[in-house]
């Protein structure tokens, strides 16, 4: 079985889908014969003028890597019209970028990360809604199987397209994502609790869906009421429609201990997780909750909005609050820093909750799924 993995989004500034593709490809190379894998750095409509920053794995072929993107475009068009075969002649082509190109005689597996473009269109752009909508509808026609990264994404699919999977009998797999960043040492919760400079931490792209504006309101209220007055650290690349949020961060940072680090490398991110007091996840909606899992692995108590993906991690691992209500969220933050015993217990539960998540497990489940499609 030859498997082509779409890593096109890893070639540009990475966000959730790109990290997913990268982690999956790396894990596949660990659990499968690398010679059976192909990395596709150009994927249908997603064309990269410079694919070199994309995922590289020794001994895994990357046939698009050295190809000019215009050549790649022509090749995908030729495959679409049935005049060419995909390089490496894969049996399976796994899309990780919401795109559904024609793949010739191969079987297309389509990852459904989320359906925010339908469930929460107000947080995205119309151009993105049109693209994702068209490509998902194409996937209904072209995909031999669907991969959902969480029960929440499967449930959203069912809510949007009720009965479709059952009616068509199209195979699907729910295989939750794995843990990308592994802590080298587990930080001591008591030490973090005692350190007033150990900050609240937010990690995520700066975009409306992440609800950072509500978090900032809650933090202001917390800061007024707290005796400890911990700082707030924000990490994440600039996303779409983020200008008002950046303005708000800049304004508040003049009078409150708010530190915006922007996009950071993995070592910096690990260091932030390691020194943080607790993780804040105010998102309106998530497909999986990658940063929640990372925080849990670092034994970080997490205060989250009760969206479906966050709830999948379980009530033992997380505390939930409504960030839309600043006082309610501030109260939850104050409660978090007022009880060492509860904090320590939550930290231990967090670590336990993260333990089952592994990209190798995800890759193995997908390999078995691919077999059923052939």
């Amino acid at each position, binding site marked *: 079985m030859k498997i082509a993995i779409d890593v096109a989004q890893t070639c540009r500034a990475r966000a959730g889908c790109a990290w997913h593709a990268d982690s999956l490809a790396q894990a596949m190379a660990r659990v499968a014969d690398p010679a059976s894998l192909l990395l596709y750095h150009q994927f249908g409509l997603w064309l990269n003028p410079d694919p070199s920053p994309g995922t590289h794995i020794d001994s895994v072929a990357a046939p698009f890597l050295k190809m000019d993107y215009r050549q790649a475009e022509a090749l995908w068009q030729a495959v679409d019209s049935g005049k060419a075969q995909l390089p490496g002649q894969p049996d399976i082509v796994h899309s990780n970028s919401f795109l559904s190109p024609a793949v010739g005689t191969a079987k297309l597996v389509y990852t459904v990360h989320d359906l925010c473009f339908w469930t929460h269109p107000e947080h995205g752009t119309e*151009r993105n809604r*049109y693209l994702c909508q068209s490509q998902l*509808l194409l996937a209904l*026609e072209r995909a031999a199987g669907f991969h959902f990264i969480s029960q929440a994404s499967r449930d959203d699919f069912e809510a949007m397209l009720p009965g479709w999977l059952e009616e068509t009998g199209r195979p699907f797999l729910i295989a939750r994502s794995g843990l990308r960043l592994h802590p080298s040492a587990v930080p001591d919760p008591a030490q973090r609790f005692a350190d007033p400079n150990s900050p609240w931490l937010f990690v995520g792209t700066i975009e409306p869906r992440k609800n950072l504006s509500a978090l900032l309101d809650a933090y202001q209220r917390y800061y007024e009421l707290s005796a400890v007055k911990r700082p707030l650290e924000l990490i994440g690349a600039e996303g779409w429609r983020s200008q008002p949020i950046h303005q708000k961060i800049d304004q508040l940072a003049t009078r409150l201990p708010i530190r915006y680090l922007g996009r950071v490398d993995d070592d910096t991110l690990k260091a932030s997780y390691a020194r943080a007091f607790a993780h804040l996840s105010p998102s309106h909606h998530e497909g999986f909750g990658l940063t929640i899992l990372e925080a849990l692995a670092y034994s970080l108590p997490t205060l989250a909005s009760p969206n479906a993906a966050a709830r999948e991690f379980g009530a033992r691992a997380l505390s939930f609050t409504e960030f839309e209500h600043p006082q309610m969220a501030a109260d939850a933050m104050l409660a978090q820093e007022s009880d060492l015993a509860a904090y320590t217990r939550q930290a231990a539960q967090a670590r336990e909750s993260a333990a089952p998540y592994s990209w190798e497990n995800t890759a193995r489940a997908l390999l078995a799924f691919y077999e059923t499609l052939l």
Partner: protein
Amino acid sequence: MAETSSKRPRVVFDLGRLATSERDAPLHAHHGEYLWHLARHWTDRLELLILNSGELFSEFAFLAEHPEIEFHPSAESIGPFDLLYSANGPSKLADPSIPQISYLPDTLHLEHPDSISHEEIAERERLSRETVAQSSLIHTSSKHASQILATHYGIQPETLFHTYFICHSRFPSEDIQLQFDASPTSSFFVPTSTFRKGRPYFLTPANGERRDNHKALLVAYRQYRANAGPDALALVFANLDPELAKPIRQARNALKLQDHVLLLDPLSPAEQKALWQSSSAILLPSVQHNSLLPFFDAMHFEKPIIASQLAPIDEILADQYIPCDPRQPQDIARAMAEPGKTPPTAKLLASFDLADEANELAKRILKLAKPAG
């Protein structure tokens, strides 16, 4: 330009930029109706000349029988004139010494640029700026469109005016029946494999551009069916541009809705009338509207209206329709379950009148055009 000798101002209607495709069909209907009215009621005060270099659209055919209207295939035969009315954006006849009124109903690139390519945005912007530069007055299709243009191009409010698309007199008085046929012999038929006679349906009369939001509507329709069960209404897309219909057909089939969603090519006014009359409600979750024509048609046929909550629709319907967020299939599906709650739309139509609208245009023309003779 030489001076004219007539005491009535010679007014040239330049139809040159009207496309033959379904995209401009509402414009054909609009200008056809207005010209018909002007020919009947204003030719004692206006000389009407129509510049139409190509094949005359069917919507204007009846005008050719009107003796008061001159038709010209090219600008050379027109001679001197006093005012230019450009029917769709800029005109090649533009002359700084002659007053010009230009119809500029389409503000898509300003209101919803994400639905078109960057090239199309640039082209629309170029044409709009050219139109504004040429024109003494800009004629739009709604108060909302006028406001958009005023804001974006800095046009003085007094140089903008709007009239509405009230064109239901284009429908013939005689009735035809919907044809239910498994093997079509005409362009207009309803396959019996899909529809039994008398099956109730939502009607979506839109040509299938991205702004019309047909794909989100199809997803919504699948949700609506799942909730409504066997009582669910069918869905008919009418007036689809054949090229634009291809991806819509593909999406419909992928969603397994072939037995419930019918896609119809452009229809004649008689066929449209039959389809309108038999429909249960009008469903238009477009993300942007220019002409508002289908809403006036819905009022004429007294049909409930389900539509996107947008400023130009509020402008004419106020709260007399079921609004929805066109971006959210779940909200469209929610609105589809409520057509029984829609107030009757026919009363609203009493507030609008084609004669009033066309007279407004005529008065503007007379005020601006000073016959030199």
